């Protein structure tokens, strides 16, 4: 194969998510022009932000050839603990920082199990998903935690606006910018791709592959905690059942964005687009009056369709 066709093929592959998004937006707009109103678009972006932030972390994990099923449980546990501290009178900013650190630590546990314990990522995070959810239920006694005070910083996080843009969207875009830079320009980013591309060759080239994995799962834990803060702020309470099935939406966003589940290939821009596709579908199907039962069918079909197109390109 000559180089030009190879890169052309890569380019087409990268364009697929954009075309998909464009297509879906077009169809929905034709069916209901209200979709394109500024207020609705901002609404979509805000709805997308939580899933997108988690999916950014998931992108790193999947690039190393792993998977993280525990993101939803980490979100619930960190949200509950942060809310618990705030309700108990801890300084809100301190509580939020501790929540983020807790998220990173919970992720690090995943990473250590996988890197040092040699447990398959699917199994390790399946176990911690259950454990973290259980801990959340124990901690909250199964009840929502509310009465979180009126700290402006905390309230802004989920409900505020910055220059007319919802703060969660700003948070998402800043996270995106930082993570994009990390993947593209740092040795860490390159090593993430390397570990997923060929772990043995990476190890033999002197890359501490175990450490990279621990970092990657910690990052995902941290981002899940960040999503937890946004969600807790929006709802003004922490729900013990929060974040259930979030791992699936995050994985779907990554896959829709064209990142390979076998690792080593993909990009975070695609994940952002993937998250937007899911968000647009959720919002748009509501707008055009598709029943919530049928919405699931449509979402599933879109994911399937996207993956099938991707496969065709690969052959």
């Amino acid at each position: 194969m000559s180089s030009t066709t190879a890169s052309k093929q890569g380019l087409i592959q990268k364009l697929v998510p954009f075309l998909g998004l464009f297509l879906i937006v077009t169809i929905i707009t034709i069916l209901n022009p209200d979709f394109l109103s500024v207020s609705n678009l901002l609404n979509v972006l805000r709805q997308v932000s939580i899933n997108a932030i988690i999916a950014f972390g998931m992108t790193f994990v999947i690039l190393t050839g792993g998977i993280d099923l525990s993101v939803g449980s980490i979100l619930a546990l960190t949200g509950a603990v942060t809310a618990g501290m705030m309700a108990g009178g801890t300084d809100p900013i301190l509580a939020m920082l501790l929540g983020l650190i807790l998220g990173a630590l919970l992720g690090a546990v995943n990473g250590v199990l996988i890197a040092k314990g040699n447990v398959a990522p699917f199994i390790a995070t399946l176990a911690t998903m259950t454990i973290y959810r259980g801990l959340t239920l124990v901690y909250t006694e199964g009840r929502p935690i509310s009465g979180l005070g009126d700290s402006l910083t905390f309230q802004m996080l989920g409900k505020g606006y910055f220059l007319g843009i919802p703060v969660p969207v700003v948070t998402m875009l800043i996270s995106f910018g930082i993570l994009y830079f990390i993947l593209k320009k740092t040795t860490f980013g390159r090593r993430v791709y390397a570990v997923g591309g060929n772990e043995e060759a990476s190890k033999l080239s002197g890359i501490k592959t175990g450490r990279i994995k621990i970092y990657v799962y910690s990052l995902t834990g941290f981002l899940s905690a960040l999503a937890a803060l946004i969600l807790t702020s929006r709802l003004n309470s922490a729900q013990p059942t929060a974040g259930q099935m979030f791992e699936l939406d995050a994985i779907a966003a990554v896959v829709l964005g064209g990142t390979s589940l076998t690792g080593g290939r993909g990009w975070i821009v695609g994940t952002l687009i993937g998250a937007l596709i899911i968000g647009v579908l959720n919002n748009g199907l509501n707008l055009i009056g598709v029943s919530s039962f049928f919405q699931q069918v449509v979402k599933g079909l879109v994911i399937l369709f996207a993956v099938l197109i991707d496969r065709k390109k690969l052959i």
Partner: protein
Amino acid sequence: MLHMKGITKAFNGNTVLRDVEFDLEPGEIHALMGENGAGKSTMMKVLTGIHPKDEGAITWKGQEVAFKSPQEAEEAGIAVIHQELNILPYLSIAENLFLGKEETLGKTGILKTKKMETEAKQRLAELGLNIDPSAEAATLSVGQQQIVEIARALSSNAEVIIMDEPTAALTDREIEQLFKTVRALKDKGVAFIYISHRMEEIFAICDRITVLRDGQWVGVKRIAETNFDEIVQMMVGRALGDRFPERAATLGDTILEVSGLTRDPYFRDVSFEVKQGEIVALAGLMGAGRTEIVQSLFGYKKATAGKVKINGKSVKIRTPHDAIGHGLAYVTEDRKSEGLILDFSVEQNISLSNFPTLSSNGLMSAKKERALFDRMKERLGIRTSSPELPVKSLSGGNQQKVVLSKWLGTNPSILILDEPTRGVDVGAKKEIYSIMNELAEKGVAIVMISSELPEVLGMADRVLVMHEGKLTAQLDNKDLTQETIMNYATGGGTRV
């Protein structure tokens, strides 16, 4: 019986075969040679229907044919045994042999296991392999697996068997066995198309040889009427001169001392030294523990006992990262699974072990990366149209140069090379030898594992011979012969 004429094939306007011809007689072993990228594989893919031809004609038993798939070719009697064997390790030998052609009770799908096993045993015995066919295929050596593949081809009544680098992973003894099988089949009228880079084998077993170069037919020769130099010249289009470039060895201080190194059950109590500027070869049969020794040396697999000193100082090497820090570099035996990241570009692969010098504060420097690529491309003569080309699109020889580049970037003082010229064409081989010599002249200590004895004799200053996990001889490469090395490699005495 088989005749290919005027075969032309282009991919995206890029002509890879131009007016190529080939013919094969019953009971003939016909070698197909040429450098990597010369078009051998493409030609075989055209023959077996993987790629349609653009022009030309293929005649099989007097009839013009155009197979649409390898299955169709196989049904017609042309079978391929690939370099990467298609053996399913957890199925039994008999199950592998009958895969896709199982004997069943009528159409019920219920397997006649006993019958297949009896038949498998008999068929394999005919090929010189006496073995319990109910055992897992994974228990077979690579050589034995190959015999199973041949049996599978024969069971579909193959009259032509195409073998692509069949001996690349075989020990000398297994090669002998394979050749015996091939010769016996030849006497029964089975014809072989034999693709190999190993000149010795071509002369040992083939009747005729067709040479391709840059997608074009160069010529066909009877083996009896040609010689090594002529064929190399046909392949590369010029005389190569000496196969192994000359080198004036000037040895410095001892840089690497290994004593009592052990990793059960792979190797025991291995001790040796290497000096600066010295090329030491580790010889021995496959499975003698050579690769395992260097893996432990490099911190990739943990040794259970033993000491390593570098420059007179005891060192603890627990990971490849440590090893690199002590000036070691390790070009692995298997480029694809251990050396390269196939999805990465040429440049990114070269950068892989050089992050410390290519970055500051964790930020990659695109400029330094490109500079390293340029330097290595120039120094090793890597043939690639762009640094951003995926490394998997390069030929074997160029891929090997990329792996070498990756390590030369770290300025190693001890370079370990495991089968440095495997799957590399003649021209690139010589370039790799020259690079080795150049490095040794600069004082780099080189430990080379090689299963090709001519290469060992042509390159090494000293030869360490392994037999079943033990070092059986340390020989100065003076008046040394292949026979002497083989003697120690097969357990005929020790001289340490």
